[in-house]
């Protein structure tokens, strides 16, 4: 396995009283194989724990329990040298293509800094060549962007430059946290396309974190749908989105506005305001109070993941137990 996450749990505010505990991520498991390269989508609404997951993988957040294992090595116990390799092999692209740049520097500064930090090369001509190659991989040309300041570029260009920066380091995995949510619709495709090409041509895997099911559907091989810190449903993207089984995932898929004026939403969703305000149940299924098909059983214990077909499609719902 390239990356394996075992029983990852993150509880915020757990040191003090137990009243204010927020379980951001609970018993989360994930595997990304070394090959073939793949895109794993992590989907969920705000507060579902998807960014906590990204931050745990990138080492910004320490898990309360569980392990992040990269290439057989638990990163919490990695030696300094191993950690440096990890930092190089696992790159990140963030949501905001405006905030990641220092506005005082030209775009080329981003690349120079990476080259310096990782001691990639010593010769200026080679630097230029590497940068050019990385930019070409994302469909840009150095002469068009390197001498510019960040504000002179579109959001799509800025985000592709971040992809180029990540690519230049030749990583094996890129953690992309909402990379297209702040980019215009007509340019979104250019970034998703770069992800697909880096996967196909360069063998780079992606962890694609998003709240947008439709882009996850477009590029994801696997999908994990999170609800309040737990996996509600996971499996091959086609299988999960085309035939969702978990009541929450069904509601979610059903609520994505269909870009067709002839297909209108059917019925109104009503959910209790208490639930909107996130006073979730202490035990049992997190979706209990919103669920239209709840059983008594659901309150007692959180449902485990049930296999629903011969593929890797799994659903955390007692309705699947029979």
């Amino acid at each position, binding site marked *: 396995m390239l990356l394996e996450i075992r029983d990852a749990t993150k509880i915020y505010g757990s040191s003090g009283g137990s009243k204010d505990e927020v379980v951001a991520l609970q018993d989360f498991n994930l595997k990304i194989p070394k090959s073939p390269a793949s895109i794993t989508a992590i989907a969920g*609404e*705000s507060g579902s724990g998807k960014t906590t997951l990204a931050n745990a993988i990138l080492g910004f957040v320490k898990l309360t329990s569980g392990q992040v294992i990269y290439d057989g090595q638990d990163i919490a116990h990695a030696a300094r040298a191993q950690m440096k390799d990890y930092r190089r092999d696992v790159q990140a692209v963030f949501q905001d293509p405006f905030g990641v740049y220092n506005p005082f520097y030209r775009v080329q500064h981003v690349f120079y800094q990476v080259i310096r930090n990782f001691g990639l090369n010593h010769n200026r001509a080679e630097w230029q060549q590497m940068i050019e190659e990385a930019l070409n991989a994302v*469909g840009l040309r150095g002469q068009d962007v390197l001498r510019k300041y960040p504000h002179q570029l*579109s*959001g*799509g*260009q800025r985000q592709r430059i971040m992809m180029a920066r990540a690519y230049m380091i030749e990583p094996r995995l890129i953690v992309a946290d909402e990379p297209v949510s702040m980019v*215009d*619709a*007509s*340019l*979104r*495709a*250019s970034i*998703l*396309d770069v992800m*697909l090409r880096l996967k196909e041509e360069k063998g780079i895997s992606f962890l694609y974190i998003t*709240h*947008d*099911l*439709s*882009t996850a*559907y*477009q590029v994801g091989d696997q999908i994990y749908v999170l609800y309040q810190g737990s996996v509600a449903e996971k499996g091959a993207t*086609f299988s999960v*989105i085309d035939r969702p089984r978990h009541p929450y995932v069904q*509601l*979610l*898929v059903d*609520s*994505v*506005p*269909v*870009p*067709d*004026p*002839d*297909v*209108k*939403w059917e019925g*109104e*969703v*009503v*959910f209790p*305001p208490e639930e*909107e*305000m*996130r006073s979730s149940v202490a035990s049992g299924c997190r979706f209990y109070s919103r669920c239209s098909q709840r059983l008594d059983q659901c309150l007692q214990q959180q449902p485990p993941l049930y296999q629903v077909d011969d593929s890797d499609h799994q659903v955390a719902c007692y309705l699947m137990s029979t």
Partner: protein
Amino acid sequence: MLDQNQKPVVLEVEGLRVYYETPAGDVLAVNGVDFQLYQGETLGLVGESGCGKSTAAMGVLQLVVPPGRIVSGQVLLDGQNLLDLSERELRKLRWAKLSLIPQGAMNSLNPTMKVNRQIQDVINAHLDRTSKQEIRDRILELLQMVGLPERVYHMYPHQLSGGMKQRVCIAMAIALSPQVIIADESTSALDVVVQRVVAQTLLRVKEALGVSMIMIGHDMGLMAQMVDRIAVMYAGKIVEIALVKDIFDQPAHPYSQLLIESVPSLKEHKPLKVTEGITHDPRHPPPGCIFQLRCPLVMDQCRQQEPVSQEVRPGQWVACHAYQSSEADQ
């Protein structure tokens, strides 16, 4: 422009230009926008960020602040040109005839005031001598209309979820039964399921009141669900305006086509449509068509002459030389 159904026009915008002053010259954010809003209809105003859709809305509301300024144009509400009114007259009219559900409405509520006070402020500013009981009843009625429980009356904004705050903003916007509501990306920061709840609330309230609405946004899926007509904006101009069905089924302008093709779908796995996003400097639009730098169909004529809006099908208006030349050939 005539409506096929002969509905009365509520709001008419003509030749609206809003520029932002910068040291390097004016940014032509809204550069000659014309449209009409009919009684009871929802008009979607779509385009990418920076195309001027929010600025156009601020122009309609007369809320453009420096360095922005309205350069020219007319905004006719009930036959009255809002550009001729004094600030005092405008203040009477906002909320009462023309209201706004702002972008990121969750942050536009005053955190130190309870919900009832905020709504009460809107009502008090316009209606004198309304009894306390009447106001209270009205606020509760408004909360009920947007699907919020009575308890919300006594709550502070921080006690509410994003979707609930958004609905408080809707309640404020309809408090004085305006003729026109402008909703600026009012659901874009919400989760999908909550977005659906808020969007459906907005639709229901709009139907119940028979109010006209301008909905600004970039989510074409949401537009398909919510609006009757769509105006597609690019670089400060409306390049196409048509019934929502026509925009989706047979978009005419190359930019509208691009926009429709790039809508991701959960129904089909279509190849990604990749386009270059290089737009001209908004301070110096090129002569001719504004879309020429990105247009796959660009012709010599597009670099010289600005296309005028023409009706290519009933109710579908497009500013593109591709259609004008084909007409000239015939």
